[in-house]
């Protein structure tokens, strides 16, 4: 009798593993924690346009902006884990927020699916500013405590970049939060602040051409960028030596069954290797960087360590 019950239990436990592969039967909601038209949103829309083919259902983007991502991610982690809500997280902003006391979510409240984009951070000034090199800027900053830097929010990703530079170069400055990259860069272009740190895709177009508006002074990477071979890395100049940038990845709420996670990992892998999808990303100046669930999990973990040990010491 006991044996019978036991084997039945085993069968019941194993059953889901042998169940038919899951696929969605209605529209899927994709939570983007930033405004429609923002960098994250644009990237998400490019990907979702091609993902439809492999997911088999319409992917509806739901923009839930506010609190540097807090609102959308809280909603994402509280969604029903039934495979009909998926979302984008930005690293390391997500791990930084989740490491804060009273955070409404943690890395345990999500399941990694696939990494989508990776972007490196750079230091920028206005093209008509007097600082031709990063050393110029650092020297000027050291001589005065009046230097201001626009950020995309208090303790948000670009604020962290500015802190990394300031700490490693040994100067102090004033960070002014603007609540988003677009407003942050507008403030720099208007001359309301002296310098800014932002992701390369957001400033690349403004920094090239006959009359560029911005000048890139340094790259947060271990090697120079292929697109800007003349711009030195911070490490070369003796400042911060590691890579710093952001990644945008797809995650599901915790508790989502494994077959659903597998389904999406596979669907997005196919999407991101689709030649048309790759061409669209190139056209929109987005740096595709697929990572599967396990690799993304490792990335999230290393970013959490970074958030806890490095970022917490910055503020």
């Amino acid at each position, binding site marked *: 009798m006991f044996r019978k019950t036991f084997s039945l239990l085993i069968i019941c436990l194993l059953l889901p593993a042998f169940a038919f592969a899951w696929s969605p039967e209605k529209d899927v*909601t994709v939570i983007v924690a930033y*405004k*429609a*038209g*923002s960098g994250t*949103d*644009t990237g998400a*829309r*490019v990907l*979702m*346009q091609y993902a439809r083919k492999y997911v088999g259902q319409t992917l509806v*983007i*739901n*923009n*839930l*902006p*506010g*609190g*540097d991502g*807090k*609102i959308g991610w*809280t*909603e994402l982690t*509280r969604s029903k884990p039934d495979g009909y809500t998926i979302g984008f997280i930005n690293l390391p902003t997500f791990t930084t927020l989740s490491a804060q006391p009273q955070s*409404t979510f943690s890395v345990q409240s999500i399941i990694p699916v696939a990494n989508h984009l990776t972007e490196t951070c750079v230091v920028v000034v206005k093209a008509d500013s007097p600082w031709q090199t990063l050393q110029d800027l650092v020297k000027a900053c050291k001589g005065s405590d009046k230097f*201001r830097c626009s950020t995309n*929010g*208090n*303790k*948000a990703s670009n604020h962290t970049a500015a802190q990394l530079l300031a700490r490693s170069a040994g100067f102090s400055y*004033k960070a*002014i*939060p*603007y*609540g988003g990259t*677009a*407003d942050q860069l*507008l*403030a720099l*272009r*208007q001359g*309301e*602040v002296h310098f800014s740190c932002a992701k390369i895709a957001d400033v690349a*177009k*403004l920094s090239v051409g006959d009359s560029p508006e911005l000048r890139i002074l340094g790259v947060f990477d271990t090697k120079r960028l292929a697109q800007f071979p003349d711009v030195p890395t911070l490490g070369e100049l003796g400042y911060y030596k590691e890579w710093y940038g952001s990644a945008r990845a797809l995650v599901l709420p915790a508790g989502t069954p494994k077959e659903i996670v597998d389904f999406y990992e596979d669907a997005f892998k196919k999407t991101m290797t689709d030649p048309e999808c790759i061409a*669209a990303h190139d*056209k*929109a*100046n987005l740096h595709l960087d697929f990572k599967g669930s396990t690799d993304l999990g490792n990335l999230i973990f290393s970013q959490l360590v970074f958030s806890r040990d490095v970022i917490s010491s910055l503020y």
Partner: protein
Amino acid sequence: MPDSLNLIAMGFMHALSPVNLLAMFLATVVGIVIGCLPGLSAAMGVALLLPVTFGMDPATGLIILGGVYCGAIFGGSISAILIHTPGTPASAATAIDGYQLTLQGKAAKAISVACIASFFGGLLSCISLYSFSPLLAQLAMKFKSPEYFWLSLFGLTIIAGVSSESMLKGLMSGFLGLLLSTVGMDPMEGVPRFTFDYSILDSGINTTCALIGLFSMSQVLILAEKSIAKRAKPAAFTGRIGLTGKEIRRLSPTVVRSWIIGNLVGILPGAGASIACFMGYNEAKRFSKHKEEFGHGSIEGIAGSEAANNAVTGGSLIPTLTLGIPGESVTAVLMGGLIIHGLQPGPELFTTYANMTYTFFGGFVLIQFCMLAVGLFGCKGFAQIARLSDAILIPAIFLLCVVGSYAIHNNYQEVVIMLLFGFLGWLSHKFGLNQAAIVLGLILGPIGEKGLRRALMLSDGDPSILVSTPLCWMLVGLCVFGLLSPLLMGRMGHGLKK
């Protein structure tokens, strides 16, 4: 110059292709329907149709998005006039006088005025789009944190204009709105404020939600209350939609004024059609010879609000296309569409991609004509809604309120917020408070707060930064003018009568 004339002409030729004509007609109709429905805003309409345009020629895609944009901004006025429910926040000011006209049986007239004003507002905004794009775009670069603070303050002086009954109660309503606007994530520190641990309040009180509650849900309560006491009925229905020559002469200056206001407001990032409609309405009232009609069904009020919000459309495209800085939320979505097509906003749009850009401009002009045709053709039909009996109308508006507030984020909690605001609206009606002033406080509060706090942060707390540029002084002057002019004009009018 002949070169750009060539481009303009060629743009029109391309825009007149059968595919583009069909696209703009359908998009305008879809836009009007989306605009009509409370909860579905212009930004949502454009975002919904964005994926549809991916596979298309970029110009056709943009024409569709432009059609939905313009259509939705006009469409919002239809429900604002007929059932006191602004379909989009851009028509909040239209509801004030539009609904009064409906009660007087002049619904069709009100809609046709809204349509014609929207048409001219949109059409005139195309002139600035064509001729002064690079020049006007510079204005967006001039507006920094202190300027935004003054802009919001100037916006708040409108409270004086919309409170026809009592200035004190108007100010109280405005302060209530400002107070409510502090709910949500602190814009500088990123910590929750007055949210009482409700995550839905982290992003602040949703303006659309509050608007539906204050304007339409409260209307349901008021109508229901009246029906129980005594059936309220709109006056006998007159179907006249045409405007007399006299009326056209009366409305023209208002439309031109609202065009300028709407255009400028559209160019400034962060200030959108919802602010422009109030400013247009207020200026219409300020310069009107028939001030007493405002609040009791003035066609000038409708024209002032509608011409201004449609003039925003062309205006907000200017910084979007030239600088890559969207003028408001709708053009932000539109810019996302541009980037997905591989078109980066900037001078290239007017050189390398001039063909596409001018086709879109041509289409944008033609969209205004589509809107006029659909609006005028349909307004008699739309107006029939106002003749429905309360027994149908009350539950129908109630349903629209609930569905509309749910549709914003597919969230039931926002329905609850809408109902709370409905009750607040009903109470404010009872106490003679002003719903429009509450909404103004709610919209302008965050802009002013961010501007002030950021400016003081930049200057290390030195308030002189607030008057550091000539533009600041100009805006200060406007604020003073806004505050004093009702008094001065009142006295002048008094003197003239004597």
